[in-house]
Structures are given as structure tokens and as C-alpha cells.
């Protein structure tokens, strides 16, 4: 099966950047209401650069691996670059198998391409990425924590 690429299992077993760290500019808490998966995610910005993304992910291997991939792809990069990576990831994940992803943009993230063929799992992979953009938006606004549920393909 093409969902559990070795690289994904590796990220899930040994996630990069896991754990919540200080300082941070914004913290968000996102929940996948279909399965109860949760991620708490913090962004720490240095001007226009993402200095750190720290997170606590409770969920399936796909959502944990996705958070680990996100950390590897956005830390140390400019915010607009991070948002572009997020957009590319989102496009690939929601492509129903038609977008294999650009390795130059998504790096290890292309190992998540198989997820797009399983509509019920797309939200698992998107969870940390949606939390990331929400946290960026909030760091610009007020820096207050949020608590957001969002919809998507459901297996309620």
C-alpha cells in the first residue's frame, strides 16, 4: 500500500522538532473532530523568519509524520516561503492522486503524496499545516492562543 512509505513511518516513529518550546509568538490548538486527533502548535518568529515551530501532536502516524515534515520544511525559512510550502502541500494532499508533489518544494513531504488517494485521511495530514498557517496569522494579529475545529472529508 502506498500510504505508509518508509519515510513516513520513520518520521512518525522519530518526529523532528516534537515538543512544545519557549519562547513563541502564537500557539494554536487544532482538533480533527472525526477521530479526536489533536495538535498544539507554536510558532516563534524572528522578524520575517520562522525561528522555530514546536508542537505536541496526538494522533495517527500520518498526522504525526506530517507535523515532523512541516518542522523540517519551514524552520529557518521566510514566512512567505513557509506559506508557499503549505500551499503546495495542501494542493498535493487534496489532489486525489493527481499531484505527486515537487521534491524541490516539499522535500520529504512528497512521501505524503499517497495520502491524497485516501480522502478520509487527507485531514490527518493537513492538521499540522492548517495549525501552522493559523498560528502565523495569529502571531501577526495578537499572539493569543486559539482553539479551532475544522471540517473536511469526514469519517464521523
Amino acid at each position: 500500500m502506498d500510504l505508509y512509505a518508509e519515510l513516513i513511518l520513520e518520521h512518525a516513529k522519530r518526529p523532528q522538532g516534537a515538543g512544545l518550546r519557549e519562547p513563541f509568538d502564537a500557539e494554536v490548538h487544532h482538533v480533527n473532530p472525526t477521530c479526536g486527533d489533536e495538535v498544539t502548535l507554536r510558532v516563534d518568529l524572528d522578524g520575517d523568519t520562522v525561528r522555530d515551530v514546536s508542537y505536541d501532536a496526538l494522533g495517527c502516524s500520518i498526522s504525526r509524520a506530517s507535523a515532523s515534515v512541516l518542522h523540517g520544511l519551514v524552520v529557518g525559512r521566510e514566512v512567505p516561503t513557509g506559506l508557499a510550502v503549505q500551499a503546495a502541500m495542501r494542493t498535493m494532499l487534496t489532489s486525489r492522486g493527481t499531484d505527486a508533489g515537487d521534491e524541490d518544494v516539499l522535500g520529504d513531504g512528497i512521501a505524503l503524496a499517497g495520502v491524497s488517494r485516501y480522502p478520509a485521511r487527507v485531514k490527518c495530514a493537513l492538521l499540522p499545516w492548517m495549525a501552522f498557517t493559523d498560528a502565523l496569522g495569529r502571531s501577526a494579529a495578537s499572539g493569543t492562543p486559539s482553539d479551532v475545529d475544522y471540517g473536511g472529508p469526514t469519517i464521523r
Partner: protein
Amino acid sequence: MRGYRAGMTLSSTSAPALPAGGAQPFTDAEVAAVRAEFPILARTVRAGRPLVYLDSGATSQKPRAVLDAERAFYERHNAAVHRGAHQLAEEATDAYEAARAAVAAFVGAAADELVFTKNATEGLNLVAHAFSSATAYRRLGTAEADDRFVLRPGDEVVVTEMEHHANLVPWQELCRRTGATLRWLGVTDDGHLDLADLDRVLTPRTRVLAVTHVSNVLGTITPVAELAAAAHRVGALLVLDACQSVPHLPVHLPGLGVDLAAFSGHKMLGPSGVGLLWGRAEVLDAMPAFLTGGSMIETVRMEGSTYAPAPQKFEAGVPMAAQAVGLHAAVDHLSALGEGGTGMARVEAHERALVARLLAGLAELPWVRVLGPAGTAERGAVVSFVVEDVHAHDVGQVLDDDGIAVRVGHHCAWPLHRRFGVAATTRVSFGPYNTTGEVDAVLAGLHRVRAVFA
């Protein structure tokens, strides 16, 4: 009417005739005959794997008889029920009311005590709204209201921690609309209702106790008669969620001592879009209407209206006649799975044997933790479990790759999962068409899960 009868006879006789044999599980030959009536079970999934459908607790598959009955209704008798005087309207109305009588007989009830709803969730909401409407009528003095449905300050609504969201959220909302207080019975570590709490939680302030008959997660069969007696002692009504019992056990609703019970058609081989609310006649009579409009009225004037007696009082709008007819075929089909209409006893015995085989197999796997009662005697056709260090979504995905359909997640019982300290579980649930080979397939699949993620 004649055409409709002919169609139904054709449908109901297409169920395999099986010997009863004292409520034994189906033999291999019998279960093969059962399966042959379900076209979907012949298909393959993913990379050509035979479908192993173990998600009947979410929705059952449908036998050909149900599909044929719906099609025959639309091809020969379709018209708006309870409207018009033309021949088709008569036939459609007769078919719809015959379905009500058949489903009522299936649960030991009188036809006029059975209300068709969109689904079980609507039935439970209907009851919750009866309380808030009666409460509003009384507070505003705008209509008569039966005391049993009027909530006063300090009154309490009691549920349990093992309820499906459908038998929890409507009661939470009722409390928000009326100011009543929600209380609940807890669940013990072995998956039973904590009855030690009963006398503390049920008090003279309790107006209603809403409880499930069989937990959709733990499989626990609750002591309904005891709970109903306790509720009645304090003057409260007992509302039963019978969604996981009626499709899997012989159930005689009036004999349980409960006041109201909701169940769904699609979980008992019937179509989606049809559910049932059973209520004792005098309780239904005492309840205000829920959805209002056409069909449910007695007289209508600009100044106000009066309403038809139950069950019509609760069936506003053109009803789901084809689905009701399909459900008629479904209960006929279930009854015919045993000699002399004893099908449900065979279904119960068969599914209990599958549960026993699965529990025995899971007990061999030290990395699997089963939730709920250890034995089969107090269990319905549901087994939920956690695989150590593997999220339920990942368990379900690997099983799906083998063609095995199980449910993963919180199964609309989030508080119950929280109670057991887990975010999600994997649930295997059975129907009359499942085989011992399918139990073995899921056990083998779990070894593969372990191999992928360990």
C-alpha cells in the same frame, strides 16, 4: 393493494428458509445462503480483495429483498401517502401502513404506537423537544402540557457516560433551552453502567432517564428493566436508544418497561432515511408535536390548529414510503432467517458466536486491549479495542488494505472514549452475514498492523 401484496410476497419469500434448531449459530452452509442475498458482499475492494464487511454497527448491508421491495414500490405503487383518493394513493398508503404494522410486530408493539422518523437521531430529538415544548407551553400559558414533560427550575435530565452523541447532545440542548440540569451515570472499568451511583443520580428531581440498550462502543447490554423501574420510582420517564439492540437481538419493547424507544432502519438491513420511535400510547398522546405542517393536523384555522392523534401527530410532511416498504421487507427477511419467524434468535446466537471467537482471538494478543465486558453474555454484536502504540486510523487503514472494513475513531461516543483514556478505538461489529473466516481475517490483519508499525 393487490399489486403491493404480490410484490411483498415475492420479496419476503426470497429470504433463505433456515431451520431454527434451538437458536444455534448459522452453519457454514446457512451463512453462505444468507450472504447470497446481499449483492454487495460479492464485490471486491482496493486491489481486488474480497470485501470483509465488519461495520454493521454503523450501517448494515441490504438484502436483495429490500432493494426489490423499494424498486417494486416505485415501479407500481408510488404516490404521496395519506393524500388523495386515487388508486395509487390508496396502494401507497396501504403499503406504508402495512410497513408500520410489520415493524411494530417485529418489536412486539402495536402499530399505532410506532412513529416513522427520518432516523433514530430524529426520534430522540423529537422526545427532547417534547419536553421543551411542554415546558414553554406551561411557562407561557399558551397550551395544555402534561406534567411529566414540564421541566421546572431544579429539574434534572439524566443520561449515561456510554451514550452515543445522538442520545447525549439532544439532552444537553434540552437543558440549555429549559434551564434543567444534566446529570449522568458513570461507567465502570469493565464497561458496565455504574449502578452504585443510581440512587445518588436519580432523585425526585429527575424527569427523564435516557439510556442505551446496547453500547455502540463497548457492546454492553444495559439492565434496562432495572433502570426503567428505578426511573419510574422517582417519577421519571425512561427513553431507550435501541439502535444497537433491535437489529441484533429479539427485542420486545413493551416488555422492557420503558416509555419510549428509538431505533434506526438502516442498521437492521433496511434503507437509510427511515427510523422509528416507539412509545406507550398514553405517553405519545401526552407529548406535544415536534415537526409541524401537513399530515399531522386535525383542523387548521388562521388562529391556530389542532393535531391528529399519534402516530400521525409526529409525521409531518409526505413520509418516506419507499423506505418504509423496504424496511418492511427487512424485518420479514430477518424473521425468516429462523424457522417459524425465529430469525432474530438465530441472528443473536450467530453474532454472539462471532463475538466469542473474536474475543478469544484478541485475548491471545498481549498488545491489544479490548474495551467493555470480558464475556459474551452481556455483550451485543460489537467489539472495540486499542492496539498498543498504533492509532486506530492506522489500524483501520492496514485492515482496509486487506479489504476489511471496520470503524475507527470515537464512534460518536467521545465522552466514553475520554472515560477510558483513549482518543480513538477500532471497532468490529457484526451482521447476520458475517463468517468465522472473517473473524480470522481481522485477527490476521492485526498481526500485519503490528508488523507495519512496531
